[in-house]
Every structure is written in structure tokens, then in C-alpha cells.
């Protein structure tokens, strides 16, 4: 959305850092003497995939509150396929993504006409509707009891199913890496430029030859695709799903991950997921007060860090790899990215 970094040195250096991080990531399971930490990490990475999906939707200036709903579509698709028809995990996984994306594509044509807060409210209603649907159509979703007996993922050429947290960690790590690479490529491609254009001024974009509807549809579908894939991972990690896991509050959570992480950079949703997933665990022991602390955290965050944590990290990052991106001016500019008002 702004000038790409010109300095070759900077790019090379950042590639180096990313590579280092990846290698580090490979050894994480050894850093956890404690399975629970690993469990949280797996959970956080699953959330990261889904939050990343929402980020793609936000990129076009549409704030969706139905993301958990699309996650649910994915989760149920892959769960039911593997349980009822016992197809292999990978098939269910892909089907989950495509299923969610197709529903998004179908609905998108109609609902993406809505802008700003009206889109937000519609998707809120949509999420509630999907939730009730999950509860009240047992034939499809197992109703309130949810889907029991989901099997852990099985991967071709890998002998036994990925039951252990460590094994699952590598699976979800690969998914996150691929998703991240894909979205990164997407953002820096001409299409990424188009998404920025539509978000910042749909009027101007249209007047200069972009087709906003098409761009928003593609972005929405990609976002929901990731939500679906994440949903599938979620189902095959917890091995049990029920409607209550996909309420409007879950959607809010994914939005929070983007905002607290910083919705304007790829690192945002990932950081957000890594910060927010363990948060309830921190508070779990303050039984009575946990809710209060949870709420206060957000208020404080919005008050002092409305752009999320990435701008802070970004400054450190710049210090690290020299002049990457551009100083000051544009983070606040970018914050308004998902602002329901902008572009409408």
C-alpha cells in the first residue's frame, strides 16, 4: 500500500531473519517440557490461520463478524466427511476450505453490496443464523451434541495419525507457513494493490478501472477459505465440535486478534493469535475476576495501542533491518484500513 522497500540489503536481511525464525520454529517442541504450553501453541497457530483469513477480508475494508460461522462450515464439513464417510483427512481438509469459500462466493455476490457498518451488522446476523442452524439441523451437524469421534489427522507417508501435540504442531506450522506465504504473495501482487485501492476509495477505484465487487468477492472468498481450513484443523485437533464453539463471540475474537496484533500487516493477525489465545489461561485462576481483567485488557489496548502491537514491533524491526517500509506517517494511516467508514 506504500512504496515497496527499495534497499536490496534490507530485503536480503529480512529474508534472513524470516529464515532464522522458521528454523527456530522447527525446534519449538523441544523448548516445551510441558505439553500444555504446546497445546496452547497449537491452538494459537490454528487461530492464526483463521485470523489471517479475516485479515484478507479486512484488506478490502469489509469488517466481517461471520468469520466463526465460516470456520464452522469448514469444521463441520471436514468432521462429517471424515466421520460419516471416513474419507482421508487431507480430502476433508481441502473440502472444508472449498466449502467455506464456495458459500462465501455465493453469499458474497449479494451481501458485499453492503458497506461499512451495514456489512458488519449483516454478517453479525449471518453468524447468529449459522449458529442456530448448527444447533437445529441435527441431520447435518449433530445438533447440540455436536460431532463426536473425530479422528486425528492422518498424512500420506506418515505412519500413524498425528495424535501428539508435537506432531500436530508441525502440521499446523506447515499450514500457517503456506497460508502466510500465499497471503504475502497476494498482498504484494497487483491484486493486493487493487484491494488497497478498493478499501481506500471505492469511488476512485471504480472510476479508474477497478471492479470493486469482483475484488471484494475474491478477497472475501479467500478469507473464508482460510477460515474453513482453520476450522478443519480445529475439529481434528480438539476431536470434538459443537455449535457453541462458533458463536458470534468467536468472530469477535478473530477480529480482536487482528486489531490487537495490528490489522495492517501480515504479522498482525499472527501476533494477535499468539497473544490472545493464552490470555484466558493467564486469567483462568482468578475465577471471579477473570472476565473483568479480560475486558479491561481490551479497553486499555484500544486506548493506548489502537494500531495494535505491530507498529511497535515494526519500529524495532526497522532498526533491525534498516529502512524497511516508511517511517511514522503511515501506521495511523493504515490503521483505518478496516474502518467501516473508509471507502463508503
Amino acid at each position, binding site marked *: 500500500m506504500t512504496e515497496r522497500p527499495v534497499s536490496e540489503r534490507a530485503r536480503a536481511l529480512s529474508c534472513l531473519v524470516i529464515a532464522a525464525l522458521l528454523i527456530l520454529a522447527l525446534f519449538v517442541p523441544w523448548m*516445551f517440557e510441558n505439553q500444555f504450553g504446546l497445546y496452547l501453541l497449537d491452538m494459537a497457530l490454528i487461530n492464526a490461520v483463521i485470523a489471517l483469513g479475516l485479515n484478507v477480508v479486512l484488506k478490502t475494508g469489509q469488517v466481517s463478524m461471520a468469520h466463526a460461522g465460516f470456520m464452522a462450515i469448514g469444521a463441520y464439513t471436514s468432521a462429517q466427511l471424515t466421520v460419516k464417510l471416513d474419507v482421508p483427512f487431507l480430502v476433508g481438509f481441502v473440502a472444508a476450505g472449498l466449502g467455506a469459500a464456495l458459500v462465501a462466493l455465493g453469499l458474497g455476490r449479494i451481501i458485499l453490496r453492503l458497506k461499512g457498518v451495514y456489512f458488519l451488522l449483516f454478517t453479525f446476523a449471518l453468524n447468529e443464523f449459522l449458529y442456530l442452524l448448527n444447533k437445529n439441523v441435527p441431520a447435518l451437524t449433530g445438533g447440540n451434541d*455436536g460431532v463426536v469421534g473425530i479422528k486425528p489427522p492422518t498424512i500420506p507417508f506418515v505412519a500413524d495419525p498425528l495424535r501428539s501435540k508435537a506432531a500436530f504442531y508441525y502440521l499446523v506450522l506447515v499450514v500457517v507457513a503456506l497460508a502466510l506465504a500465499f497471503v504475502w504473495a497476494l498482498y504484494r501482487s497487483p491484486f493486493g494493490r487493487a484491494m488497497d485501492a478498493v478499501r481506500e476509495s471505492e469511488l476512485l477505484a471504480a472510476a479508474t478501472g477497478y471492479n470493486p465487487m469482483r475484488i471484494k468477492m475474491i478477497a472475501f472468498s479467500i478469507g473464508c477459505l482460510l477460515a474453513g481450513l482453520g476450522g478443519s484443523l480445529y475439529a481434528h485437533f480438539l476431536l470434538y465440535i459443537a455449535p457453541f464453539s462458533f458463536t458470534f463471540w468467536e468472530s469477535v475474537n478473530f477480529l480482536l486478534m487482528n486489531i490487537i496484533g495490528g490489522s495492517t500487516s501480515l504479522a498482525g493477525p499472527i501476533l494477535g493469535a499468539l497473544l490472545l489465545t493464552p490470555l484466558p*489461561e493467564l486469567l483462568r485462576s482468578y475465577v471471579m475476576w477473570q472476565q473483568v481483567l479480560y475486558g479491561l485488557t481490551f479497553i486499555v489496548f484500544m486506548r493506548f495501542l489502537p494500531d495494535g502491537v505491530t507498529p511497535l514491533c515494526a519500529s524495532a524491526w526497522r532498526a533491525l533491518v534498516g529502512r524497511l517500509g516508511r517511517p511514522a506517517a503511515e501506521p495511523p494511516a493504515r490503521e483505518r484500513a478496516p474502518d467501516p467508514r473508509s471507502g463508503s
Partner: protein
Amino acid sequence: MRTWIRNVAIVGVLAVAALAVIHEPVRAAKTAELKIGFVSALSGAGMAWGMGMLGGLEMAAEDVNKAGGIPIGDTTYTIKVIAYDDKYTGPGAVQAAQRLISQDGVNIIVGPIGSVPMLAMADVTESNKVLVFSNSYTTKALSPKKPHTFRLTPTSMEFSLPFLQWIVKNQPQLKTAAIVGPNDESGKEVASHNEAAYQKVGIKVLAKEFYERGTQDFVPLLTKLLASKPDILDLDGTTPGDSGVVLKQARQIGFQGQIIKTGGPGTLEIIRVAGAAADGFLYVSPWDPNEPKVKALMERFEAKYKMPYNPLGVYFYEGSHMLFDAIKQAKTFSSDGLRQHIEGQKEYTGLLGRYVWGGEAEYGIRHQWIAPFYVGQVQKGKEMMLTKINP
């Protein structure tokens, strides 16, 4: 710039805290402390039940520790309860169980309440051979495939039939019923048990309605439900708070028949909400609140937790004592040793009377605690026990 520093501070704190929780070291399992895990709804709608259960467990633990703990071999163990809130959700329960097992290193978990948390947790606990003493209404909770899962609370499966038989015996004029319940797994489960029981005793179910949790105005629902002119209005697994509103509004719009409730106890709350409308209300009660021993327990709880004691909790007071005795006698708390001992138990006599293990017929495994219960009625805003039933 000042704010910038503040920002860094905030982020720093959060990051450190996050790391702290992930890297919290595992405490060595071999101490003179016996850790018992507890998972249940400690916040939100299910809190009254959850706290009642926790109270039962913690008070029982208190008793044991006061009496000098549990001697096994040369070490005597004092009991430490580690309680986590699952917010009445599946993922919450799984997460809590994960933390208890792999971080706190417990191999006995008491709870949770509710079928969804129960079913969600099962995979984790069974694959780790962790003993679970739960409280949920779903039939799926117990099965031969889940050798480590027990249930301390009798469900509508156990008490619906005797309760309804008693009603038919004492009020033969009641011929038809309508059921209202929450649209969740417990609500539907209880309803199905009750329907079966109604059929056995020859009462016709004219209509049933399930409502979403959070519903406040029941008048539209009741208007439709009571249009079928039933003799009995059955509140099913409706939460006490909602039950109170339903009672109040049903009477308001002129329902004169008998109102009864099987699942989800909490009659004091119902009376508090419904007021005079609660008079004549028939229900299943785990205890007789007018019995001195029970009164004492209730007072002890209220003193400790500053809230009324939910009757459900008594099963967990009794059940925890049963569990601790078992550990004492078995001289082990390894899941298998303990499990075999408990399965071998003839019977257990506690505060309220005699308990036995049952459930082969219904669940194919003898892991269901069969407890005595009471048929209670609200008279002039007071709980009156009409009879005690020993299944």
C-alpha cells in the same frame, strides 16, 4: 513519546505474562500433596451449579485434611484442589483438562457439568487414563469405551420414572403434560427421558417447546404451549432462574394445572424469582433442606462462599468423601488401582444415606452413582419434602 513508552510497557507485560504461562514449570508429581483437578462452569450461567460442586469437593477435602490427610505407605497426603473454569463450553473444558493433566499433573478430575464439556473432555481424559467424576445428563457420557469416567449425579434417566410414578399415585387426575426446556443437549436429553417415563405411567405428552438460552419473555412460547390445555407443565432442564420466570408467567396467563421439574435443581432461586406463583410446584430434590445435617452443610457453604448452596453440590460433597475413602482403602491413587477398587465397592453410606453403583442396563457399564432423592413441593414459599425415594 511518553505514551509510546507506556505502550511498550503494556506490550511487554502482556508478552512476558504469555510466556510465563506457557513456560510455567511442571511441579514434581511426588510430593505429600495429592492434587485433585476440578473443571466446571465457575462463571456465567452455570456458575451456581459449578460453585456448588466445587464447594462439595473443597469442603470434603477440608474434612479429610483436618483429620490428618490420607496415609499411603509412609507418606500422608493432604488434598489440594486445583479448580479451573470451563465457562460451560466444550473447548473450555478440553483446555482446562489439558492444563490439569499435562501441567498440574493430576490423574483425578471432578466435573464438569453439562454434556458438551463432558463429551468434549472425554477424549483427553480417557487417552490419558484420568479418572473423571462428572455431572452431566447425556446418556453418551458413560459407556464401556470410557472405563475411566464415572458419574456422581443421578440423571433424569434415574429419577424421572420413580418421580412420575409417585405423581400418578398421588394425583391420578393428571392425564396430560406439556414440556418446556432449553434448546441444548441437556434439555433435549431430559425431555426424551421424561417422555419415555410419561409413556410408561400413561400420561400423554401434548406438546413440547425448546427455547434458546437467554430468552427472557416466555409468554409467546407459553401461550402456544398451554393452548393444548395440559394438566402438567414440565420444566425439564430449565435453569432455576428461567424456571422462576416461566412459573410466574404461566400462572399470570392463567395456567391452573400442576407444574413440575425434574432436571437442574435450585428451588430457592425459583421461589425467589416466582414468588407466590411457585406454590404447589413439585420437583425432584437431591436433599431435604430441613434436615439438620443438610442445614449445617448449607450454612457452612454459605459462610465459605458467600452464596446459597446449590443442592447439586451435595452429591459432590458425598462423592468426594466416597472418593477419598476409596483412596484410603485402596492405598493408591493410580487410576487403574483406584478404578478397580471403586468398581469393587459394594455400597457407600454418607450424609444422606446409602449409595450404590449401577447403570449396566442403561449404559453398559456400572459407573452411575445411584443416590436417594426426595420429592419436594413448594408450600407458602417454603421447600417441603413429601417423600424420600430410594431407587
